[in-house]
């Protein structure tokens, strides 16, 4: 058995969540790594959609940005940005929105705007929304991949950039949002899914070697653990080889 890092476990777990034929709107960074790994392993038919206007990209390495040339050159179709959002995302043609987060709260709301309570005088100014608010609203469901710590995994986000389940209990439906919102959160420690009734994120699996106590320590709210807690299967040598080959190709 080869050794692997927590980040590699996270990317592999996130990749496994995607299946062939799904249409996936991909954020740059961790989501793009996972989606490309899925396409290179068990889901070759996965359709990757990048907000820069590349539909069905098949890059041989991980793009550094959302609009690298390789995304356009390997796409089924290249379109303008208004078309991406209006014709493809807004009507509900995309199955999975795959997002990262600077801050994520216990109801799956995402903050990528500011850290601190005062928007006008933020402690830290983050990049902002990008495509995420409408990806989170209009994809059939949303997967979030994020490195977990008490700073990133908070009771309530400082700013709701992208709406998850609000404060829970069906708020999302009441607002008329058509997608199901975050249904899966993958971190470097484990996997979370929303409780079907309250929509609070519940720990449903830990990665190999991770204890519930470690997850609790890295969670900024009182962690709930599923009755039947699973352990994520260890990355296979094929998965690790494919992930490392993608990263190797990107840095060369």
């Amino acid at each position, binding site marked *: 058995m080869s050794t692997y890092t927590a980040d590699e476990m996270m990317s592999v777990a996130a990749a496994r969540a995607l299946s062939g034929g799904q249409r996936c709107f991909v954020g*740059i*960074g961790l989501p793009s790594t996972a989606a490309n790994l899925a396409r290179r392993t068990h889901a070759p038919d996965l359709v990757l959609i990048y*907000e*820069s*206007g*590349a539909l069905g990209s098949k890059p041989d390495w991980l*793009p*550094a*940005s*959302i*609009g*690298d*040339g390789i*995304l*356009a*050159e390997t796409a089924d179709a*290249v379109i*303008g*940005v*208004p078309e*991406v*959002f*209006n014709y493809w*995302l*807004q009507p509900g043609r995309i199955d999975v929105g795959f997002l990262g987060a600077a801050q994520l709260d216990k109801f799956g709301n995402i903050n990528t*705007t500011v850290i601190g309570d005062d*928007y006008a*005088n*933020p402690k*830290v*100014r*983050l*990049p*902002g*929304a*990008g*495509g*995420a*608010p*409408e990806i989170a*609203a*209009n994809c059939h469901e949303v997967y979030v991949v994020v490195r977990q710590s008490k700073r990133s995994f908070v009771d309530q986000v400082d*700013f*709701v*950039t*992208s*709406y998850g389940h*609000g404060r829970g209990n069906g*708020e*999302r439906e009441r*607002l*008329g*949002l*058509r997608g199901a919102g975050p249904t899966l959160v993958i971190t470097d420690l484990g996997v979370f899914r929303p409780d079907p009734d309250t929509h609070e994120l519940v720990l449903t699996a830990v990665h190999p070697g991770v204890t519930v106590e470690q997850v609790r320590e890295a969670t900024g709210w009182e962690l709930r653990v599923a009755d039947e807690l699973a352990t994520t299967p260890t990355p296979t040598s094929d998965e690790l080889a494919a992930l490392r080959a993608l990263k190797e190709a990107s840095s060369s």
Partner: protein
Amino acid sequence: MAEIASLSAAVADLVRDGDVVALEGFTHLIPVAAGHEIIRQRRRELTLVRMTPDIVYDQLIGAGCARKLIFSWGGNPGVGSLHRFRDAVQHGWPVPLEIEEHSHAGMANRYVAGASGLPFAVLRGYVGTDLPNVTDTIKPITCPFTGETLTAVPAINPDVAIVHAQRADRAGNVQMWGLVGVQKEAVLAARRSLVTVEEVVDELEPVPGGMVLPSWAVDRVAEVPGGAHPSYAQGYSERDNAYYAAWDTISRDRDEFERWVERVRSGEVVRAS
């Protein structure tokens, strides 16, 4: 009809202090050289509009050219933060920066409305987020046909739009291909427009997926080979990912950044590597 001009003459003619200026290009075809020319000509009090204010707006903001930024994502793509943008928002350096913050879908639709001669655009967006609480250009609107509540955003009609393209012919017809972002919408929404191109050619050969902006829809064309660097022009150059990483170091420190600005103002060709 578009007039073919030098970059410095085009910027001097079209960009004025206090203007609303949009430099567009979604990762690809970013008119970076034109941004440097605006810094060189010391424009002030600009309202800068751009979906993805990346390195080029970090430079303009740090150089003190802007009083306001209208945007949807401000980062160094694939690298991290924009340090000059953050310094301006968090500390008001070198001058305070007002921000008007949207999502990509909202900004794209604002350009579409501007290009379409409409006062606003409608979308399914922003619902449940805190953005409408901090941005007063996001409002609910009721569909007159179904009664459904949707979101309205006002048109953007910049005083000047600047984009980069692969090439133009001598009559000033502009041709671009690859990821074309909101370049067409920005040019058509703007009162005045400048397109920098990799080359001016005798005849525009058709390219699969290519788009042409007719000469009569553009005010100035300037030939600026490599004018998108460190962004790229498909068919001409590759994205210089190392420059984006190097910018993180230059922009992190005010003194180092100011030395960089002096190099731009003195007309030195600026490369981070």
